[in-house]
Each structure stands twice: as structure tokens, then as C-alpha cells.
């Protein structure tokens, strides 16, 4: 589907945020500047993260945690060199913590991908044009119809 503006992306993400359950995993992939952080900002609003909380890019910090109705954990594996570092990071701990995990660059570690997750692929089609394609894995498949049911 087409994403027409950052605010449209955030509205779409907020709607998903309202549907999520504890332990749900959202995988975000796509090039730098494709809208991943923007989407997570909307997702956080939908999960009930306070409006005053700034949702920033997690690349440097690797993990950012936000308390909310459903806590949000934002994980960015961009700077992780190999899978053994995931243990040090407490990756599995976050997945099992009951928080919603939004994970960027998970495709670098396919063996670490949890079986139930929603995969979002962002693409840059032009200076202002972004597209999003969605794939559900395991029990997250049914989330797609709940989320995008009324959409083309």
C-alpha cells in the first residue's frame, strides 16, 4: 500500500498499536529513511505511550524501552555484529517480557526471528513516496485483517 505522508504513516501505525497484545512482535525492514522510526512513533501512540515522550531512533542505543498500557520495546539490530551479541543484549528476555517488540534489521539474524510476528517492509519509491507491504507469520496473520480489513 502507499504511504502518502509521515502523518498518514503514523495514523496507520497508531491503529495497529491499538490492536496489539502482550508479546506481539513487529518486524520493520527497509532502507534508511524509508519511514521505520516514523511508523514506530505512531505505533507508540496507539499503545498508549504518553504524547510527551519522544520516540527517537534506537540505532545508537540498540534498545529503547517505553512504559505504556502495553510497554513498547524498540530494538535495532543495525549495529549488532553477530548472533552471540544477541544473548548479551538480552534479546530473548525482551521477546518474553510481555512487551510489544518493534524490531529493526531483524533480517540480519533470520535464525533469531520469532515464529509469530508481523513483518513490515518499507520501500522508497521517490522523494516523497513510500510504500509498505505486510506479511503475517504464525498467529500474527489474523492481525492483518483486523488492522487493514477495511482498506484496499
Amino acid at each position, binding site marked *: 500500500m502507499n504511504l502518502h505522508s509521515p502523518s498518514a504513516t503514523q495514523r496507520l501505525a497508531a491503529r495497529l498499536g491499538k490492536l496489539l497484545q502482550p508479546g506481539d512482535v513487529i518486524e520493520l525492514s527497509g*532502507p*534508511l*529513511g524509508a519511514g521505520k*522510526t*516514523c511508523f514506530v*512513533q505512531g505505533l507508540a501512540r496507539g499503545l498508549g505511550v504518553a504524547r510527551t515522550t*519522544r520516540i*527517537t*531512533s534506537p*540505532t*545508537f*542505543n*540498540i*534498545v*529503547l*524501552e*517505553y*512504559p505504556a498500557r502495553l510497554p513498547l520495546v524498540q530494538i535495532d539490530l543495525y*549495529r549488532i*555484529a*553477530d548472533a552471540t*551479541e544477541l544473548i*548479551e*543484549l*538480552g534479546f530473548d528476555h525482551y521477546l518474553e517480557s510481555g512487551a510489544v517488540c518493534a524490531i529493526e534489521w531483524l533480517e540480519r539474524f533470520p535464525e533469531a526471528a520469532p515464529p509469530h510476528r508481523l513483518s513490515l517492509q518499507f520501500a*522508497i519509491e521517490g*522523494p516523497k513516496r513510500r510504500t509498505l507491504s505486510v506479511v503475517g507469520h504464525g498467529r500474527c496473520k489474523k492481525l492483518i485483517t483486523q488492522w487493514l480489513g477495511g482498506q484496499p
Partner: protein
Amino acid sequence: MKVLGIESSCDETAAAVVEDGQRVLSDVVSSQVELHRPYGGVVPELASRAHVVQVVPVIREALHRAGLAWSDLDGIAVTRGPGLVGALLVGVQAAKAIAYARQLPLVGVNHLEGHLQAIFLRDSDEPEHPVPCWPHLGLLVSGGHTLLLECLAPGQFRLIGATRDDAAGEAFDKGAKMLGLGYPGGMVIDRLAQVGDAQAVPFPRPMCNRGLDMSFSGLKTALSARLQKTGQPTEQALADLCASFQGAIVEQLVRKTLLAIDRTGLRELQVGGGVAANSALRAALGTAVSARGITLHLPPRKRCTDNAAMIAGAGYHHLVQGERADLTLNATASLPL
């Protein structure tokens, strides 16, 4: 008062001993030294964030370089957040173990406060230099943070502006990655930009009317769009692009800092964090604030990046104010100033 500082909030494991919050007796950062195991041999170069392996050798090295024994220490300060919980916990547990074993007073320190303490530090053989008077304005620019703060007193800060998306340091590093300069490559952009023309490529000037908030994500997007159109530049074109991209980041930081000076009326400014090492930012801030009669305090480059001396320095002020952490001290991922 000699304070041992321990820092493990992100990539670096670091330990330092600082006297009276100012004199740095030793300052050890794991990535910059060959660490010697207690029974001989050198610890091979380790991946970032191997804190468990590095923390004890780093602390021992800090004591050794300071020429001190455990019994010479008067207190311990450790970073308790913000950062990676798993990484922070290693430093916190080590600090608690030492504090318990040696019966030393312990405090937990906010990593960001540490960056704002770096300006007050000096090497033990270095003469005293002018330091900021309180209150003053603080600009904290690093890979993970971009903040404007009113620094009211040691340990007391008021946040007045921040980035809404990427940190300035992250914009540099991701820009470098897009330009094929490696990651982290903020320093490479700085070097190449020195022979480039900052006016060569127009970049957006975001957040003109958004008060003291900042944004750097759009610059990354603009760079990506530019590269799609023109392909990867080389030689002079690359230098020009680096200078223009850097110029857009620096211009926003300087513009917001000047606005903060106008709004707060503060007459002194200090800059901390890894991006404070950027030569264009140092030069541009110098020119901009001196025109207004503002005193600018810039730490030496080696104190801009993550280190433990700044943690020991900040911890000193908490210790002399009688603050104490007990053995329930915990690491906190999100910790506002």
C-alpha cells in the same frame, strides 16, 4: 576525595579515578587500550559490549595507572542509565561488589550528567582551565542524544529542547554509511568536509519554527534521495556533499543553541557528547557565540566520547552532598536528567 568511576552504558567498558571531581588520575576505555590479564598476557581485542569480560581488567588498569590501591579510594560512582540494561548491569554489579567488599560509599550517576561534567575535568599534570559558572546552557550532542539543557547546579538540569527523531551523531554516522564511508563514520565526514564546499549541495533546513526542538531524520532522507539521483560521488564531489550534509546538521545545532541563549538569557555555554568533537561544530559555535559575547566551553576531543572519568566527576558532587546508593541500586534503560 578519590572516586572510582565505572561506565558500561553502551559500547565501551570504562573505569577512571578522579580526585575532587576535577583531577583525572587515570582514565581507561576498553577499546583504546590493551588490557593485561591479572596473570600476564594481553586480552585480545574484543567486540564492543563484551562488558563482562572487560570490566575487571579495566578497573584494575584504572587503579594501576593512578598508582593507587583499593584502600586509597574514597567512593565509587557508576552509570545507572540511560543505556542498554544488560550492559549497564555489568557496571552496576561490579560497583556494588566493590563498594560492599571495601565498605565504600556508592552513587549511581546519569550518563548524560556525566557528559556535562567532562568540561570540569583536567589531567593531573594539566593546569586549571576556566570552567563554566552555574547556571549555564548545555548542548549535549552524541550518537544517542541531542539535548539543550539549562544546567542549574551540579546534578540539577532542566531539559529545554531535544531531537524528535535521530540524534545528530546518528545522522552523521548514517550519512557516512550511505556514502560508503563505513559505520560509524561521522569522523570521516568531518575529515572529508574540510576540503569540501558546504554550499555545493542544498539540504533542507528543518524545524525552523518549532522552538527548541530539533530533527535530523529528514537530512538522512534528503541525502538518500540525492544519492539515488546522482549515484555515489567521489573525490571533490564527495567532499562537497560531506561538507554540505555536515553544514546542515551544524547549522541547525547552532541556530537552536542561539535561540536557547536568547530564551534563557544564560551567558555561558558548554558542549558535551561525541559530536562536540566535530571540528565544524566547534568552529561554527565559536564564531556564533563570540559575536554575542557568550563564553563557550568545549572539552578536549578525548573527553567528548564515552568515558568513566566524567562519571567519577559527576559522582563526586553527589557523594559530597551525602547521597548514597545501597545494594538495591539497579540499572535503568530510560533515565531522564
